């Protein structure tokens, strides 16, 4: 299956792009996606612990099982206000 990944804020600079796609086995979790992303974009790895992850417009935990076509967003801590 394939998921779309968007980067926000300075994660765009660290990744060198605003979005990418990832091919994963059926039932892969966000955890598995992160492993794949960090292999391809190693500058994102040091921020792993503070990285926030959404699927669509909802936050999801690392254990969340992705589905084909999911829109995943990775971003640093938010700073509204």
């Amino acid at each position: 299956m394939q998921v779309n990944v968007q980067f926000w804020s300075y994660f765009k600079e660290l990744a060198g792009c605003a979005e990418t796609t990832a091919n994963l086995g059926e039932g892969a979790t966000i955890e598995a996606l992160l492993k794949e992303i960090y292999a391809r974009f190693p500058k994102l790895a040091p921020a792993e612990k503070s990285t926030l992850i959404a699927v669509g417009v909802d936050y999801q935990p690392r254990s969340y099982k992705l589905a084909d076509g999911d829109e995943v967003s990775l971003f640093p801590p938010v700073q509204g206000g």
Partner: protein
Amino acid sequence: MTRSLTLTSSPIDEAALVRERTMSCGMGAAAYFAGVVRGTEGEAEISAINYEAFHNMVEHQFALIFDQLERRWTLESVRVVHRLGVVKVGEPSLWVEIIAPHRVEAFAACQFLIDEMKRWVPIWKNPVK
């Protein structure tokens, strides 16, 4: 509870927003907060902040916060305006209004909303030198 969220790249006209206020006759309290861009970010002097937003998710996350306000307190209305793009030092980037029967819940809800926003609403700052 009436809800209003505005994401805008135009300056926030607080006076106009206050003039548009409506309150039914059981309401005694209006609490407001205006967050204004400061001249320093960390140690560095800045001239502005460029706000970036994940627009759809901002709207959804604010809706979830509004749901929580509604569960916790009896409020008549909440209005939030967040400015996006470049906001100069001294200009408001955030404006919040809570209308409630009494001040205690108006203040509590206003602070809760801002605290939750700063935790969950996907907006980011880019300081401009």
